[in-house]
């Protein structure tokens, strides 16, 4: 498998060097793998820190900046970062008003962030954590590690980031983040598997004429495999699952997210089908975002995330944000 890399061992460090070169508004510690806003700590503001395995770019490093995250910690490809990174990030961004950890629900992320919270609290930093688990493809039961965190993470980081920017205290920013988690549901499909630099071959086998319904962002298997479907059929299927679970009573934010290798032309076509289904189901759409935001390296496919929002959450969604990966209003 050909990749635009030097060697597998340095992909994360190389990417961080590139991020640093392109974004002088970020402080990138390539050695320690910590990305923070240049103006951190922001006086009087609760800070948001997230992180996770690399390979999902622009998540999370691309979401560091005014209106979203204060710091991010990239791990090895598809491997949770270590607690030291998160504790270091927390120390770099804490203005004394506390830090919210935004954690995607994977065992590794959960455990490492938990340890990081202990380390940070030892340093006198007030820490709260919110667990993002929006992936309805996984049954949340005592028989699984619980729903995975995927596209909903973007909504959590954006909306809680705006709430923090407004000066809300830690408990309230945490509560906002939790509200967003409770309001978000995602479903992903893969048309092809992704290839990690370390392994060099696809992480799973997907026969030519089939697609994986309910795939995770690390190529985790989904609910089922089916013969290839049209984008209209995929939208019907994905929204069926999401809407059954979410049962929205409020307008929704829609994220049509590319997994990495699916052309934007196709993503926009798919989002037309998503809108069709939502219209048919009489679910009002407040905003739609289409693009590659929570990716899975070079996987072909997409995910849909809905987040139902009241006026307050919508206002925070619309609030200015200025990051490498998401930017508006400023």
């Amino acid at each position, binding site marked *: 498998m050909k990749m635009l890399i030097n060697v597998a061992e340095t992909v994360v460090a190389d990417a961080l060097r590139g991020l640093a070169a392109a974004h002088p508004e970020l402080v990138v510690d390539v050695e320690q793998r910590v990305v923070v806003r240049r103006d951190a700590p922001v006086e009087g503001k609760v800070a948001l820190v997230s992180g996770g*395995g690399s390979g999902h770019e622009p998540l999370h490093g691309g979401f560091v900046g005014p209106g979203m995250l204060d710091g991010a910690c990239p*791990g*090895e*490809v*598809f*491997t*949770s*970062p*270590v*607690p*030291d990174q998160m504790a270091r990030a927390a120390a770099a961004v804490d203005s004394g008003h506390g830090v919210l950890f935004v954690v995607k629900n*994977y*065992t*590794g992320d959960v*455990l*490492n962030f*938990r*340890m990081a919270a202990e380390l940070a609290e030892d340093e006198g930093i007030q820490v709260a954590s919110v667990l993002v688990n929006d992936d309805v493809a*996984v*049954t949340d039961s*005592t*028989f*699984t*590690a619980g729903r*995975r965190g995927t596209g909903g993470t973007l909504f959590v980081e954006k909306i809680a980031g705006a709430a923090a920017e407004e000066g809300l205290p830690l408990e309230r920013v945490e509560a906002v983040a939790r509200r967003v988690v409770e309001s978000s549901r995602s479903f992903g499909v893969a048309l092809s598997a992704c290839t*990690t630099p*370390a*392994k060099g071959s696809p*992480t799973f086998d997907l026969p030519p004429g089939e697609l994986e319904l309910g795939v*995770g962002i*690390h*190529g*985790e*298997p989904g609910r089922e495999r089916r013969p290839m479907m049209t984008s209209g059929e995929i939208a019907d299927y994905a929204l069926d699952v999401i809407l059954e679970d979410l049962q929205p009573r409020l307008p929704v934010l829609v994220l049509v997210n590319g997994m990495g290798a699916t052309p934007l032309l196709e993503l926009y076509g798919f989002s037309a089908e998503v809108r069709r289904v939502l219209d048919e189901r009489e679910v009002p759409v407040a905003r739609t975002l289409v693009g590659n935001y929570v990716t899975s390296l070079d996987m072909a496919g997409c995910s849909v995330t809905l987040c139902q929002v009241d006026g307050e959450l919508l206002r925070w969604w619309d609030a200015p944000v200025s990051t490498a990966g998401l930017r508006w209003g400023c």
Partner: protein
Amino acid sequence: MSEANLDADFFVRWLTAVAGLVDREAERLTELDSAIGDADHGSNMQRGFAAVATALTAAPPATPGAVLTTAGRQLISTVGGASGPLYGTLLRRTGKSLGGAPQVTAAELRAGLTAGVAAVGELGCSQTGDKTMLDALVPGVEALATSFDAAATASEEGALATVPIRAKKGRASYLGERSIGHQDPGATSSALLFAALAAVAR
């Protein structure tokens, strides 16, 4: 169980042996993780135990407890993923329960490991039968009451016994039924810990 006293050097040799074994078995671990996880367990363990070996060689701690807590700290700081905090906690908690003694007996080690393994279950909200490292750790520690070799055998058997289990924890749990028929990578690496222990004790 032998009455031989185990000093700091013994623990350094143990963990260095683990590093060697993990290095040799890395591809197999990743292959196992590829089937029911995300294909990184081998490189995670390699990265972690390489750092442990380096740290212990650079500045060998004076007591068994310090060797283990240092090693655990290294794992936590370098591995990431699920296995980093879990193995890190195993070694740290074991080390802490050994206290500051310059030498420990095998029985004391077993008591320490029992506490360490309990801490793993606590951190991971997991128990034997979930198809995790615990399925090799728990029988391994139990068999330590007999001998180091018995522990190696028991943990190896525990790892093999994960094959028919349906995973309830970790990444493999997403697979549901489809996790059946594959050996758990973490249980497999846990068996390596006991294999190295037996080899060093011989």
